[in-house]
């Protein structure tokens, strides 16, 4: 470790190794970071938290030389530095490991570990030494594997350890970890923690990005909270109760409780429009179950990474579920694919509008009728007249603002794009609507319209599952809220408890999980 120049600070509070001040970074006119500061001290783990789009990744990329800040400065060991490339940052002692392992999967484990600084003998690679050293190093990280095999043959957790060993081996003064545990098994997480503690004992400063509260409180001493590209809080983590931390991350002035009058209580005897039991997706969702009745909006809340989107995807078969059953109107969905779910009347508005929803090169009309094509066709020939009729009806009903139905959907605003996708599903007359972040990235006006539409649809008798990271939206829009944490239901808010305080408490996981009755307490 190159720590000879680390100046000692007063009373156990060593001088910072890295100080970032006033970092600004924009992309195409959108501010990703505005005046963000970060101070890292040797031997301490600094948590960096925030919801999606808060600017965590951008800040990390600025620290590691991937992005160059538009303004602000970085001081490393007391002197100002500017990194033009990730390599320069690495040479200066800032190492990073990411969610996805950035190594060469086809090369051997040992070669990956030594990549770019292979031991040589007479100008040639010293393979024997490389393999021997790699095996020694990795054993310390709990990886006992044949280092001559290709990296991809290792489990994800072991690959993560190789990446970490590699990063920590470069005499790093700062190690940045971006959600390192997201694909790890529990025992691998323990090993990772041990390694992190070992690193800090050697005086390394660690930046730890994770959305798992338990990990943060177990591992980190300091915390910086980002929200909408700004630093909203920084300080020791132990002084900050979980609930306040969650409040800082979400940050809205919450509507205390729903303002909408309670809807009619659904017929208890009728089977629910949608019933899910024991949904399980490896690493993501663990036995989630719930009922959605006709005319009801069930909110599905949870922090980033809680498995809320994955649950919705598993219901429609867009994500392969390892276990669990789904019933629509009391009838089990045996074939699990989006097409089968749609036939049964269950549709999903996906979270990532661009990647999973829109056909960017096609028109508004074609985007709306996409899923309905077979219904608008006779003998395989699509009726243009019936298309136009459907498009006209839904453009008017959802007030989609487009120059014409033939305008490319990519040219519309985010709100109108979202309405186009809603129209795609509504024209199928579904029974159950799963909405994953229906108002993300759309402007305030469109947001209110979409939220009003959800209410209206539920009033018309649709069952709605509303997945949202926005606490206010959940409270205002849902009849009940199921809260997930690490893929497991931890609480269900009903009646008076559909309230901001209860939601925050549940998100911070201060309540005990309801008694397990096989349905995770998600039933009425």
């Amino acid at each position: 470790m190159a720590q000879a120049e680390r100046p000692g600070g007063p009373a156990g509070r060593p001088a910072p190794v890295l100080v970032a001040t006033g970092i600004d970074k924009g992309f195409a006119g959108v501010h990703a970071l505005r005046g963000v500061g970060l101070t890292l001290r040797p031997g301490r783990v600094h948590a960096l938290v925030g919801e999606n789009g808060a600017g965590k990744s951008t800040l990390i990329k600025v620290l590691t030389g991937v992005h160059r800040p538009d303004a602000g400065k970085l001081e490393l060991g007391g002197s100002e530095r500017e990194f033009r490339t990730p390599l320069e940052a690495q040479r200066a002692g800032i190492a990073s490991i990411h969610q996805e392992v950035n190594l060469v999967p086809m090369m051997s484990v040992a070669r990956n570990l030594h990549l770019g600084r292979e031991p040589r003998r007479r100008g040639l690679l010293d393979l024997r030494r490389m393999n021997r050293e790699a095996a020694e190093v990795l054993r310390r990280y709990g990886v006992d594997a044949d280092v001559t095999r290709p990296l991809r043959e290792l489990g994800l957790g072991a690959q993560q350890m190789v990446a970490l060993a590699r990063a920590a081996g470069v005499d790093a003064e700062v190690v940045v970890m971006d959600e390192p545990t997201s694909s790890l098994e529990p025992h691998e997480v323990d090993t990772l923690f041990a390694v992190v503690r070992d690193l800090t004992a050697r005086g390394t400063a660690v930046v730890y990005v994770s959305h798992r509260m338990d990990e943060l409180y177990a591992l980190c001493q300091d915390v910086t909270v980002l929200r909408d590209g700004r630093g909203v809080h920084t300080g020791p983590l132990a002084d900050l109760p979980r609930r306040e931390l969650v409040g800082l991350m979400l940050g809205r002035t919450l509507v205390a409780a729903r303002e909408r009058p309670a809807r009619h209580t659904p017929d208890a005897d009728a089977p629910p429009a949608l019933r899910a039991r024991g949904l399980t997706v490896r690493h993501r969702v663990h036995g989630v179950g719930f009922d959605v009745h006709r005319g009801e909006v069930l909110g599905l809340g949870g922090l980033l990474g809680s498995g809320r989107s994955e649950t919705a995807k598993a219901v429609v078969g867009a994500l392969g579920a390892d276990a669990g059953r789904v019933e629509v109107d009391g009838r089990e969905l045996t074939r699990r694919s989006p097409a089968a779910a749609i036939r049964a009347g269950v549709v999903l508005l996906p979270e990532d509008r661009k990647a999973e929803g829109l056909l960017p090169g096609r028109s508004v009309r074609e985007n709306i009728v996409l899923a309905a094509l077979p219904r608008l066709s006779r003998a395989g020939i699509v009726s243009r007249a019936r298309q136009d009729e459907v498009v006209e009806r839904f453009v008017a009903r959802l007030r989609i603002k487009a120059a014409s139905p033939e305008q490319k959907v990519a040219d519309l605003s985010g709100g109108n794009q979202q309405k186009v996708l809603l129209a795609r599903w509504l024209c199928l007359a579904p029974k159950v609507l799963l909405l994953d972040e229906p108002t993300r990235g759309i402007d305030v006006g469109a947001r209110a319209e979409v939220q009003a539409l959800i209410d209206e649809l539920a009033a018309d008798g649709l069952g709605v599952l509303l997945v949202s990271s926005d606490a206010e939206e959940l409270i205002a829009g849902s009849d009940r809220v199921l809260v997930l944490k690490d893929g497991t239901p931890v609480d269900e808010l009903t009646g008076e408890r559909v309230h901001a305080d209860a939601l925050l408490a549940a998100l911070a996981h201060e309540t005990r999980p309801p008694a397990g009755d096989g349905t995770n307490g998600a039933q009425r």
Partner: protein
Amino acid sequence: MSALAPAGALRGAAPVLRVLRQYGVYAALAVLFLAAVVLDAGFLSAGNVRIQLFQVAPTLLVALGMALVIGTEGIDLSVGAVIALAAAVIPLYIGWGLPVALLVAAGLGALSGLAGGAMVAFARVQPIVATLALMIGLRGVASLLNGASAKPVTDGTLLALGADAFAGVPLTAWLAAACVALTAVLVHRTTFGRQLVAVGDNRRAARLAGLPVRRVLLTVYLLSGVLAALAGALIVGHGAEADPANQGRNIELDAITAVVVGGTPLAGGSVRVLGTVAGALFMQLTTAVLTQHDVPGSLTKIVEAAVICVAVYASQERGTR
């Protein structure tokens, strides 16, 4: 900040590119045609026009199938080998009558397409790899069936199909025109056609919208295989011999060129049928004009390459955004 300047300049150029992509190939075809006539009035003679049509028809048939495949963000390199396969089996089955020989050839084309489509749709092999494997393998099968030498074909109907004309226009061109019309209807008017471009535009969205993504992929490769087999029959009929070792060689590249020059983006999500026709004609005329004016073959190739570069650049809308 300075990095933003070129992006702005590109955005300014986008409408020009859009128009170029939309109509460029027709304008270029018209200009080239006029130039050919001005340079040599004999270009318009019935004999020359027929030669051009004879030559372009098989390429066009293959290009139609290729356009469908490219519309799904795929590519089909196996078409040349399917032609060789058709050329290999036609002499073997022509004794049973032309319909049987054609059915066998088309059936094998369909089988090859299904194999390629299955690799792409189910095994998720990259289209270029899947069809490259077929391209190599099918040429091998063809030479196993036929041996190394060319075989003469004497079936009167097949020769007539390859060489005769109706109303002054070769039968092969009529056939190609019919296929163009059918493909245009398929792409623009049918459920399948609309699903095809959706799969090419955003496969994940198409899957989430419940589209039969795998069936669509299987079908486009199947159609491409059948069209290639049909083109093979025309080539055999026109040449009056079956020569699997040489027939259909490099036609996959000519077909891809026609599709790309015609304005269909390689990134998928759009199929331009008439553009493909214009692209095939344009490449055919370019070669013909240069050859007829005694431009050396090597230079002709270089000009073709330049045309492809311009066409690909113009079609690159998504990449620049």
